[in-house]
């Protein structure tokens, strides 16, 4: 069975200084302090290669894809479809046609909840999600449950921030038609045991959708080895432009689904009272697509592949371990697993008696960008009895020195609040 966390081979290291030089924004200052960007779980920064790819498209190749007979139209189509091929290769999808482009995770999950859920679910069926989900993997299913009469059920989480697998058998039953679960929690950092979850879901005949918004940017994902039915992701969290991203879907499931967005370019023929659809993936891609953004995502994937996803993970494990240790020692309460092997690079915490919003404002004065809030995961916040947390999140361009700056900034916050 595929392991979602493979220990990278030794020697897979990345040159952080060389990587940082590719990200123009990292030379910015916040007031008189260097920027320390610790909010990549919200959106990652972009290397010059991605910025150039998007701008090169507009400067030299801009035309609508799949429409123009003219030369630019052909170039635009080739670049756009080239990006699809890169995404397919990155996820080891069996074909480029199994990749549907969307504006990102939220739109992708809505596409599944609408195109698959509303077509195949009925009263008595169950949709299983977990208490760990981002709102983008809750709300679309609430809407679909209301429309179809299906019941929405939750796999609970433990005090340690893990999925409560002891409850899996009671909530995952033959009534479960789809199990939609995060691969890595944005609020807790938890990496979920996907191989086990997928096997258990398939054993009861359920389709599995994975929210890969945090997983895909940080860990190597092989959709065939995992035997995945769907995985959704956002380009902007993996060095790509905003409004890039999409989903992988198993071909026969995509074929059986209804379209999501109706309109131009997704149809074969239109008659007064009905229309016929193009083949997948085009039946899901109504209207002019985010062509430049997906081309930028292709460049982001080139960048990540040149580094190697094993090296990405190895670097993040090192930073995560260091950050968990330092933030914990500084006196903060950390939410989510404390074992770096079980988590990605998002560390949610509450520092002493400083409210996360106050903390985010104060550390910003030291140049440090962290997130404060409920992280679009209000169920998680309620589970742990906090209205909000502070969250520091890391990526390939972050260093241990930056963690040290965060710690000093936390100490500064404590001084301010000790007034």
């Amino acid at each position: 069975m595929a392991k979602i966390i493979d220990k990278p081979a030794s020697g897979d290291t990345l040159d952080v200084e060389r990587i940082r030089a590719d990200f123009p924004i990292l030379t910015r200052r916040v007031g008189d302090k260097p920027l320390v960007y610790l909010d990549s779980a919200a959106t990652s920064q972009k290397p010059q290669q991605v910025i150039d790819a998007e701008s090169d498209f507009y400067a030299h190749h801009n035309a609508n894809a799949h429409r123009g007979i003219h030369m630019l139209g052909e170039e635009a189509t080739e670049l756009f479809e080239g990006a699809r091929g890169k995404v397919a290769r990155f996820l080891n999808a069996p074909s480029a046609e199994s990749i549907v482009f969307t504006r990102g995770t939220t739109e992708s999950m809505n596409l599944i909840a609408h195109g698959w859920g509303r077509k195949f679910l009925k009263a008595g069926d169950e949709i299983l999600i977990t208490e760990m989900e981002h709102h983008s993997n809750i709300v679309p299913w609430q809407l679909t449950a209301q429309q179809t009469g299906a019941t929405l059920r939750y796999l609970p989480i433990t005090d340690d921030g893990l999925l409560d697998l002891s409850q899996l058998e009671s909530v995952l039953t033959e009534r479960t038609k789809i199990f939609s679960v995060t691969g890595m929690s944005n609020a807790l950092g938890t990496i979920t045991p996907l191989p086990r979850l997928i096997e258990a879901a398939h054993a009861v005949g359920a389709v599995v959708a994975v929210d890969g918004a945090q997983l895909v940017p940080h860990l190597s994902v092989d959709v065939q080895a995992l035997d995945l039915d769907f995985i959704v992701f956002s380009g902007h969290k993996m060095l790509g432009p905003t409004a890039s991203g999409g989903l992988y879907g198993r071909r026969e499931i995509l074929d059986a689904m209804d379209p999501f967005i109706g309109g131009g370019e997704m149809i074969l023929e239109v008659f007064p009272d009905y229309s016929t659809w193009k083949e997948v993936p085009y039946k899901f891609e109504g209207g002019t697509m985010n062509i430049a953004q997906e081309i930028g995502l292709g460049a982001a994937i080139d960048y990540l592949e040149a580094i190697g996803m094993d090296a990405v993970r190895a670097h993040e494990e090192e930073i995560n371990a260091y950050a968990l240790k330092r933030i914990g020692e500084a006196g903060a309460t950390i939410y989510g697993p404390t074992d770096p092997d079980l988590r990605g690079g998002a560390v949610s915490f509450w520092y002493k008696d400083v409210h996360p919003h106050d903390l985010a404002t104060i550390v910003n004065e030291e140049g440090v960008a962290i997130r404060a809030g409920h992280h679009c995961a209000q169920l998680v916040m309620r589970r742990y009895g906090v209205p909000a947390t502070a969250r520091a999140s890391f990526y390939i361009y972050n260093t241990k020195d930056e963690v040290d700056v965060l710690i000093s900034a936390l100490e500064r916050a404590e001084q301010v609040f000790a007034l």
Partner: protein
Amino acid sequence: MALDDIYKEVILDHYKNPRNKRELPNAELSCSKNNPLCGDDITVFIHEEGDTIADVAFQGQGCSISQSSASMMTEAVRGRSVEDAQALTKDFRDMMGGEHEPDEDEFGDLVALKGVVKYPIRIKCAVLAWDVLQEALQEGAGEAAGTAPHTV
């Protein structure tokens, strides 16, 4: 240092020792709101005697800016007429919009929140309690005018 402008002693004092943070059993009016961005929430309770805000209290949770603003607000509007409290609400909002130079006599501790203007994303924190106050007072006025009130 700029930071000290918003984390003044007076703000932290109201945050750590909030005034009138309790329920008000004899409140005729109450209203709750939260800030969906951050999850801060505030409930304001008002006891009126005639046209005067005889007592006012709040409950809630959130950052130092939202909670201290609520605390200061209760002190600032107690004993004022409804009309007067609404005028102060407008002045406070205008101060947070950078359009009103506060008068120390009128504003008292509230002047301390002026520094928040430099942190646009935090202005909502400072204004939340005042939004709740205004809505509660409007509902009171609605009741007087015969529209459906949402009162305790």
